[in-house]
Each structure stands twice: as C-alpha cells, then as structure tokens.
C-alpha cells in the first residue's frame, strides 16, 4: 500500500448548513500492521532517527501537517 493515508466521505444530510466536504483523510501508521516487532530491523542513523522520530524506518509514519498545502 503506497501511503498510510486513507480517505472517507463524511455523511451528507439534506439539512447540512455548509457545503459538503468531498473527503476527509486519516493515517494508519505501520505499527498497526506489526503485531510484535521482529528483531534486527534495519535502523536509521542516529541523526536521522532524531529527525524522523523513530529508530526503525519500518515504523516511521510521515503524518504530514494538513495546513501547508494538504487539506483538500
């Protein structure tokens, strides 16, 4: 699966006060698919680990912010 982002369309009622939102997104991080972390996973370098927020690339979840660019 390419990215951890998934999409759904919120319910649209006949009396909605605002225009309908096309879709909303949510993130499903990799740790949802790894029940028990296997040993000896490849690791980031220490500097990268600090930047990415995890020591193992397999568990990294970008979780980009919605405000710059994203959103729609």
């Amino acid at each position, binding site marked *: 699966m390419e990215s951890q982002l998934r999409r759904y369309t919120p319910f649209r009622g006949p009396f909605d006060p605002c225009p309908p939102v096309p879709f909303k997104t949510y993130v499903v991080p990799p740790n949802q698919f790894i029940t028990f972390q296997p*040993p*000896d996973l490849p690791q980031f370098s*220490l500097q990268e*680990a*600090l930047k990415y927020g995890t*020591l193992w690339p397999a568990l990294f979840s970008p979780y980009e912010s919605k405000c710059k660019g994203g959103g729609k």
Partner: protein
Amino acid sequence: MEANPCDQRYYEMLEQLQTLDFALVELNLYLNTHPDDLRSIEQFNQLTQERTKLANQFQELYGPLQNFGRAYSKCPWEWNQTPWPWQV
C-alpha cells in the same frame, strides 16, 4: 578561560547528547519487550558509554546537566548559574 555557554560547541554537544538520548530511549523501550535481543543490548551499552563520556565532557566545560548528586560542580557553585535550559 571560562567556556562561554553560547558558543557553537555548546549547541553541538547538546544536539549530539539529544541524539544519543533519543536513540537510548528507543532502544530501552524496545528492549523492555525484547529482553533476549543481544545485538540491541550491545548497541544500548555502547550508546550508554558514549552518552556518559559526552555528558562528562559537557559538564566539564559548561557545568552540571543535572543536580542533586548526579553531576559534579566546580567552585563557585555552578548549578544555579545561567543559562538555564529554557534560556539556551
């Protein structure tokens, strides 16, 4: 010469310390659930040694990182001198 805390070296060492600490936290949490993973334990011990050495170097130059007996102090007493962490 009294090491001025706002020089480049100060921030470099702090960042390196932060990098080591983060990796150590990750490894520690990992090892809580993987007690038999020898490779990670070796990595953890190696990083701990590195972190202790770096912390000692830092404290030698710029004063204690922690107090209440977790770090030595020169004279005059260094703990309550500026800069404090939030001022750095």
